[in-house]
C-alpha cells in the first residue's frame, strides 16, 4: 500500500536536500558558464598551444563519466595531497564538467558570428576585447541560449550523483529516507517531482534572464 504520510517526519531532510541541490546548481552554473566562456574564447581565438590545452580539457571531460571524475577528485586526489571536503569536491567536479560541455556550446555560437561584424567593429575603432564584449558575445549567446539552458539543467540533474560522496543533496535525502522507512516508491516519486519542478523553474529563470539580456532585438 502506498503511504505518503510516512514521508512527513522527513520533511526537513527533503527540504535540506532541495536547498543543497539549489545552492550547488546556482553556484556551479555561474562558475561553469564562466569557465566555458573563457575556454570557448581561447579555443576560437587563442594561439595554437592554448587551443590544444583547452581541446585536451574538453575532450577529457566530455569522454569520461561524471562519476569517475567525481571519484577521482574526491578519492583520488588525497593520495597526492589534495584533501577536499565533499562540498569542495562537488563544486569543482560540477564546474569542470559544465565548463567542458559549455565550451563546445559557446564556441558554436562564437563561430557563427559573421566576419562582417568583426570588420565593422574594427572600422569603428574597437579593439579585440571591446569587439568581443560589445559586439560578439551577445548575439553568440543568443544563438546557443536554448542549448546552454539544457546543458545547465543536465548538470543540475547530474548532481544527483554527488550523494555518492556523502553530499547531502536531494538524492541523498531520498536515499536516506528510503533506508529509514523503506518507502522506496514514495521517496523517489517525491524526489523525482522535486527534480522536475527544479528543472522547470530553471528553464523559466533562464528565459527571464534571456528576455532581459537579449532585449535589444525587440523593435519598439
Amino acid at each position, binding site marked *: 500500500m502506498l503511504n505518503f504520510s510516512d514521508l512527513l517526519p522527513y520533511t526537513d531532510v527533503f527540504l535540506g536536500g532541495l536547498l543543497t541541490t539549489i545552492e550547488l546548481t546556482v553556484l556551479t552554473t555561474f562558475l561553469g558558464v564562466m569557465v566555458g566562456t573563457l575556454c570557448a574564447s581561447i579555443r576560437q581565438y587563442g594561439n595554437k598551444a592554448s587551443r590544444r590545452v583547452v581541446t585536451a580539457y574538453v575532450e577529457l571531460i566530455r569522454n569520461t563519466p561524471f562519476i569517475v571524475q567525481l571519484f577521482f577528485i*574526491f*578519492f583520488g586526489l*588525497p*593520495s597526492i595531497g589534495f*584533501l577536499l571536503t*565533499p562540498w569542495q569536491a562537488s563544486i569543482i567536479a560540477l564546474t569542470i564538467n559544465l565548463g567542458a560541455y559549455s565550451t563546445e556550446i559557446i564556441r558554436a555560437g562564437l563561430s557563427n558570428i559573421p566576419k562582417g561584424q568583426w570588420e565593422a567593429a574594427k572600422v569603428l575603432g574597437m579593439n579585440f576585447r571591446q569587439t568581443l564584449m560589445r559586439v560578439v558575445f551577445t548575439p553568440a549567446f543568443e544563438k546557443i541560449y536554448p542549448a546552454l539552458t539544457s546543458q545547465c539543467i543536465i548538470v543540475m540533474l547530474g548532481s544527483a550523483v554527488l550523494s*555518492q560522496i556523502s553530499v547531502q543533496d536531494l538524492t541523498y535525502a531520498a*536515499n536516506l529516507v528510503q533506508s529509514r522507512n523503506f518507502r522506496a516508491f514514495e521517496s523517489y516519486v517525491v524526489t523525482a517531482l522535486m527534480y522536475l519542478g527544479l528543472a522547470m523553474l530553471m528553464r523559466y529563470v533562464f528565459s527571464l534572464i534571456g528576455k532581459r539580456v537579449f532585449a535589444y532585438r525587440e523593435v519598439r
Partner: protein
Amino acid sequence: MKALKKLLGKTLIATACMAAAMTATADVLSDIKSRDEIRIAVPQDFPPFGSVGADLKPQGIDVDMAHYIADQMGVELKIVPVTSANRIPYLQTSKVDLVISSLGKNPERQKAIDFSTPYAPFFLGVFGEKSVSVGELQDLSGKTVGVTRGSVEDLELEKNAPTSVNIQRFEDNNTTLTAYLTGQVNLIATGNLVATEIAKRKPARAPEAKFMLKDSPCYIGMAKGEAALQSEVNAIIAKALAEGKLNDISMKWLKAPLPAGFGV
C-alpha cells in the same frame, strides 16, 4: 487387523530403538571421550572465521578454536564444514558435538540450543586513527564520522550520537572503507571485520577501536541440556582467555586485540 498389529509392533520397536539411541547420546561429553573424537562444525565460507586456505585445509578463528578445544580435551578433531543456514540443524540432529561457526546469541537460538561463554569478538563500533582521541559517543561531538547508509551502525549512531556529530553517509561498505583509507574521514562506524579488512589493506592506517555501538560476540553452540559438556567448554574458554590464547587468535585473524572487558 493383523497387519495393523504388525505395524504397531514395528513402531514400538522403532520407538524403543530411538529411545535407546537417545539415552546413548544423553551425555555428549562422555560420548566424545569414549569415541576419542570430537566433531566440530566450522564455517567454510566466512573468512576470517572459517574458509579454505591455499593448502585446501580449513583455516580461521573458528578452526583454530576447534583445534584448541580438541587439544585441551585430549581427543581427535573431526572438522565438519557447514554453512550458516545448516549449522544449527547439524547440532540438533547430533551430526556434530559443537558448532564453532561465528554464532551469535539471540532468544530464538537460545530456545533451540545452548551456548558457551564468548570466544571471539564481533561488534559494531566507532574506529579511527590513533591520533583521534574518542572514548565514548559524547566525544564525537563536532567530529565527522563516516558510515554506510542504512546499516545497523548508521541507525545506532543516529539514535544515540549527539546532534552536533557530522555523519557522512556513503553508499556501501567499500565506499566507507575508501573514504577512511584516503583520509576523507578519520573516524568510521562499522563492524570489526571491516576494520580488519582496512588493517590488512593499509597497515599504516590500521583503525583503532574507540568504543562499541553494539556488541554481539561469537559463542560456541551445543545441544540443549548438556551441562557437563557446557562446563567443560566454558572451562577451556576461560583457560584460553587467561593464557592469552584468545587474544593471540584475535591478533592473528582480526589484526586487533580483544576489546577491553571481553568475556568478563
